[in-house]
């Protein structure tokens, strides 16, 4: 079985975000880059399939040279090979453009399952994985918190508001991952894993290598684009309630009732 994990390198969730002088991007200096946590859950799920069923796990990413580090980390966790599409012409792609790049790269690979996070914690778009499935004409199951593969089918549990849905799809299929660190508990790269990862194949491709022309993706082809960024409104300094426990409790109830009118 061939499993491809789509992986994005994103700023660490501890990062303080600042807006660049151009007003529509963020300051990337001094950022610590990590694997998007939801993609990391996908890597873990893929490696469990490798452990159980001997799947071959390929990591696919689009990004600048620094993304090699994220792919190497996934290889050190146990993935078999990696591919990075690193081409300046991909910059400024919208979600559909990013999906086109990934779908083009996937068209040249064997896959039974494509896995990725349901969203990347930078742009929070919730789009790319599902769009890749559409472009490739395969079914998708989104926001998985449990995954099983048997008899040519993938089965997932998906939490929706107030309920849990069990879904299944025939392979080949796309699954996007939800849940949390506690649900997937992704493994750490071992020291021998890190050593081995250095020798694992990692191809770096240009758009032309995957059959795309520069104008098909990137800023020029984007249907939707960021025109300005702003910081969230500053919250006013709050009020610390005085008095003993009983006084604070009474005052808080009064404020929430009379002032905020919430209870």
């Amino acid at each position, binding site marked *: 079985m061939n499993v491809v994990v789509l992986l994005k390198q994103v700023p660490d969730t501890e990062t303080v975000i600042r807006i660049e002088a151009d007003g529509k991007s963020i300051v990337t200096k001094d950022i610590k880059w990590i694997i998007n946590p939801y993609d990391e859950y996908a890597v873990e799920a893929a490696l469990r399939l490798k452990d159980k069923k001997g799947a071959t796990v390929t990591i696919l990413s689009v990004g600048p040279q620094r993304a090699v580090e994220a792919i190497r980390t996934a290889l050190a966790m146990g993935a078999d090979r990696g591919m990075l599409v690193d081409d300046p012409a991909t910059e400024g792609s919208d979600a559909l453009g990013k999906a086109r790049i990934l779908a083009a790269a996937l068209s040249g690979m064997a896959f039974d399952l494509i896995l990725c996070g349901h969203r990347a914690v930078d742009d929070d778009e919730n789009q790319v994985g599902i769009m890749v499935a559409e472009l490739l004409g395969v079914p998708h199951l989104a926001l998985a918190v449990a995954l099983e593969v048997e008899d040519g089918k993938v089965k997932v549990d998906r939490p929706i508001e107030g309920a849990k849905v069990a879904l299944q799809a025939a392979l080949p299929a796309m699954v996007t991952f939800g849940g949390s660190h506690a649900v997937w508990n992704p493994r750490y790269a071992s020291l021998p894993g890190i050593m081995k990862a250095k020798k694992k194949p990692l191809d770096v491709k240009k758009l032309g290598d995957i059959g795309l022309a520069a104008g098909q993706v990137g800023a020029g082809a984007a249907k939707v684009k960021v025109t*300005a960024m702003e910081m969230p409104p500053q919250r006013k300094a709050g009020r610390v309630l005085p008095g003993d426990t009983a006084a604070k409790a009474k005052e808080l*109830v009064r404020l929430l009732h009379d002032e905020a009118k919430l209870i």
Partner: protein
Amino acid sequence: MAQGVCVITEFREGAFRRVSFEVASEGRKLADALGEGLTAIAPGAGVEAAAPELGNYGVDKVYVADDPRLKDYLAELYVPVIADILQKISPKVVLVAASVDGKDLSARLAARLGAGLATDCTQLKVEAGALKAKRPLYAGKAFAWYEWAPGALPQMASCRPNVMDCRIPDPSKKAVVEKAAVSLPGATKSQVSALQKDAKGKIDLTEAQIIVSGGRGMKGPENYAMLEELANVLGGTVGASRAAVDAGWRPHSDQVGQTGKVVTPNLYIACGISGAIQHLAGMGSSKFIVAVNRDPEAPIFTKADYGVVEDLFQFLPVFTEEVKKLKSTC
């Protein structure tokens, strides 16, 4: 020529979900700004009888796709049906709820239509006849404005629940209903095999008006009963920090933060949560924030409208009693 605004509704267990009324209300606002009409596409099982109600929120005309096989959301069935109707009515703007199913549907639909999509928007407006959308990035550490390329139609956006103003329903206004021809594929590659409702009937964090949330300071899973009680009295729901979920005290569905759910309730009560940056991102857009923490230096106080510096085990029972007293008198 593309014209008007179209909203796609969610119908579950015999009723439209509240978020669909929010989206319809927002759609009406944009349609008025464009000087054009508001249509809706309502897929579901048994949705036809309920469809006129969408008029209460400003919808002029509803295309219903009523079929027993559309009872539960499945992209493979919903997307072709909705895409067919959209191609026929050719709207300028398409709005969807940024709910779990709405996010799923909108992504696949946008790819099928070749449309630009802005997800989870918190503000939408029309300028010079075109849509502009504001949405959070990095779980709300920053916001970005989006515009669509000239001629890129439809302009698709999903609306974050609990943020857009919902109109006061006008029961005298009924939408015109047209039954759309529904041709579903005979066999699908994917299936819903079971849908299990949450036994407790818990309100999802993304749609809750009041959230009582607990972190590492709760000291153990057994102490969340205190928060459950307070949430019950307030008519809210319980959330948790990543530390509490990582410790196995609470289920992943309770996690608030950059990994986890980004929430926008009217009231967020943070108990024993110090306020790691990734948690603050996830709840910083709440309308009112109350923090209860022993440590006066905890970063959560920088976001709180009302701060209570006190041991939560001492404070919460007294506070819950006070809330009960208030609730019994009004």
